[in-house]
């Protein structure tokens, strides 16, 4: 009975006091779970991701079919190579825009994903002992992932940018360097259940599918500015005013739930010469 009264009281404590009560056991539990979830999550991810196409070696007819398939596969690889070259050019451009002086990049493994539609978060295997604290920016390559919301001694939680209602000021520019110069600064908002952002723009605004949205939000730390929030995946007529307004959809380049490694940006550290390469 006493226990029930105690949990009733703790359920209605102000958040600051609730954190004081719950943080030690929570961090301990997270540290205890980390070794097993760290092993299980990559296996689960490899299972959940769409499988790669595999070639089957059979009889002569089958071999011929496989040959045709291999040719198609080769053509696909060539396309991917071209795509990779374009991405390298994009990344060089992004790197020029990022201010990474005085920022230490700390790689961390993702041990679990919250699976919550309203408050999506991931758990990292680094914590206060690795100088992590609430508010630090987390990225994957040049893609913005979120911010550390809680740091225990051995692990930490990252609130993802795709949490419904998250608003970010972004600068939407062409993905290919050297393309016709156009730019739109706008506020995008994360939409529930879609893992994407939306905004309403004028129908004459220069936004096209494939453009990249870079963070340009003053409320975020300097080191986060310029990171890629997502790619424009849809520009469609707004239902309420189809002649004058467009609804622009921005989707993160990577599906955040399947990430296994990220990089935490620690400001105030010695200069680094390399970009935020993720693993």
């Amino acid at each position: 009975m006493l226990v029930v009264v105690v949990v009733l009281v703790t359920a209605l404590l102000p958040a600051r006091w609730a954190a004081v009560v719950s943080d030690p056991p929570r961090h301990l539990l997270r540290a205890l779970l980390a070794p097993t979830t760290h092993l299980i999550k990559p296996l689960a991810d490899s299972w959940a991701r769409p499988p790669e196409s595999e070639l089957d070696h059979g009889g002569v007819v089958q071999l011929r079919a496989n040959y045709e398939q291999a040719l198609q596969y080769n053509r696909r690889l060539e396309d991917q190579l071209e795509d990779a070259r374009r991405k390298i050019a994009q990344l060089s451009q992004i790197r020029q825009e990022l201010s990474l002086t005085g920022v230490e990049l700390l790689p961390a493994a993702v041990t679990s994903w919250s699976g919550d539609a309203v408050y999506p978060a991931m758990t990292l295997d680094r914590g206060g002992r690795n100088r992590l604290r609430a508010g630090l920016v987390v990225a994957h390559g040049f893609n913005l992932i979120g911010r550390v919301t809680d740091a225990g001694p051995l692990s930490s939680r990252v609130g993802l940018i795709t949490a419904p209602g998250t608003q970010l000021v972004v600068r939407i520019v062409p993905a290919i360097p050297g393309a016709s110069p156009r730019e739109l600064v706008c506020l995008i908002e994360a939409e529930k259940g879609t893992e994407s952002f939306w905004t309403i723009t004028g129908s004459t605004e220069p936004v096209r599918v494939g453009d990249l949205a870079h963070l340009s939000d003053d409320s975020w730390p300097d080191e986060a500015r310029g990171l890629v929030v997502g790619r424009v995946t849809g520009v469609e007529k707004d239902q309420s005013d189809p002649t004058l307004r467009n609804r622009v959809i921005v989707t993160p380049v990577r599906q955040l739930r399947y990430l296994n490694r990220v990089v935490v940006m620690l400001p105030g550290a010695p200069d680094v010469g390399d970009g935020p390469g993720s693993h």
Partner: protein
Amino acid sequence: MRWAIFAILAYVLLSLEQGLRTALSVGWASPSLLLTLLVFVSLSGPRATVVWVAIVLGLLVDLTTPLPVAGRAAEAAIIGPACIGYLVGAYAAMQLRGVVFRDSPLTIAAMVFVAGLIAHVVIVGMLSLRGMPWLLAERIPGWSAADQLVDRFLDLLYSSACALPLGFVLVKFEPYLGLWHHPPGGRSRR
């Protein structure tokens, strides 16, 4: 009940629940394996044991599902809602266990739905109380009771489906847990 075995079982299920979430989730719905364990214990265990199991498992759920505070800039685990929710859900399962076949995975799946429904209504109700002006507890940013109920209902449907295979495993595991409750004067089990 053998508490050491129970602790290992809870740890394994919680690790699987957290680690396999990307593989097991359908859209945003993901199953709760701990709820199945609670229902399984509630259907077979002595009342005092069930109460403690509900509090312990509820505490684990509370600690692993922190909520945002201070305008989403930080988060805090609020201990209590799931403890109370699971306690009420387990009580409902105990009230109904006399009229069901306890050894059947189908029963466990159905009871996961019933007990989980009650538990989640209590949890959402308690977290919604935090917005009341006469309480010290501040409102959770972005909190919507209706959205929560819909999301949790979908989770619950999925948890019930997952409770079928897991229930089968747990029933086989029962002798090691030492749960079988014998009330004075006869068999307790249908």
